[in-house]
């Protein structure tokens, strides 16, 4: 397996969908290639950071700003 091929397998590896043979080749490459160790690590952190941004709900506000609630209700009444 080359570094190029290794990169192509990253998503399947992270999703846990590599076949046993592919997984073995993936790990054999990882054991001898420091660049791909780094690439895997930074790639995984990138994906993790995105998922955290969406999943934690840290960015969900405590409430919808009241003026926005009122604007929404007012425009509904206008349309009704």
């Amino acid at each position: 397996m080359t570094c190029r091929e290794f990169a192509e397998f990253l998503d399947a590896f992270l999703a846990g969908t590599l076949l046993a043979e592919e997984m073995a080749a993936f790990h054999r490459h990882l054991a001898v290639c420091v660049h791909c160790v780094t690439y895997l690590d930074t790639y995984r952190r990138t994906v993790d950071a995105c998922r955290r941004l969406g999943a934690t709900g840290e960015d969900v506000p405590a409430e919808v700003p009241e003026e926005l609630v009122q604007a929404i209700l007012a425009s509904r009444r206008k349309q009704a």
Partner: protein
Amino acid sequence: MTELPDLPVLAASAEPDECQLVQALRRGEEPAFAQLVRLHGRQLLATARRLLNNEEDARDCLQEVFLIAFRAIEKFEAKCRLTTWLHRIIVNTALMKLRSRRSRPECSIDDLVPRFTEDGHHLEPPCPWSDHATRSLQAAESHRLLRRAIEQLPESYREVVLLRDIEGLSTEATGQFLAITANAVKIRLHRARQALRTLLDRHLEDLT
């Protein structure tokens, strides 16, 4: 000290049954509209902010979504949850808004994905991220860093990252929203993640 009431009881009295809310909306009862906005607006506003990365656009988007929902409530089918239904409407509305924004010059994805030598080795070996960089990425302020990097992705790649990795939609659902095949979603997502890694790499380097 008095015992706290059981949570389900509390929840039931605070949030009337979804069916009742839907019926009240269909009857056009004013308090029901306000209730829908207060109950689901927070989550939807967060989604709009994530997708649009602009407060004014996010607020406009939320307003549009509720107007669509108020009008379409007749068509809402009780077999899916209101949350899911509203999430779909906001993703769709935000995508249309994203596409209508004046297109900005974008960097080419080719400059952001790794390059390889003829025999398949990394042409520019990746650098490990320092402890400092890793902490920055985990810290609360990383949201800003990450959003800035996502904003720099070419549009079609940004969309796929937003829907798959940020909003957590399935490959199939993402394909439906973007009108592309599941396989095209996978290919685009892979290139988008690679490009995002490069962009984060650059931003993290600037921090140190």
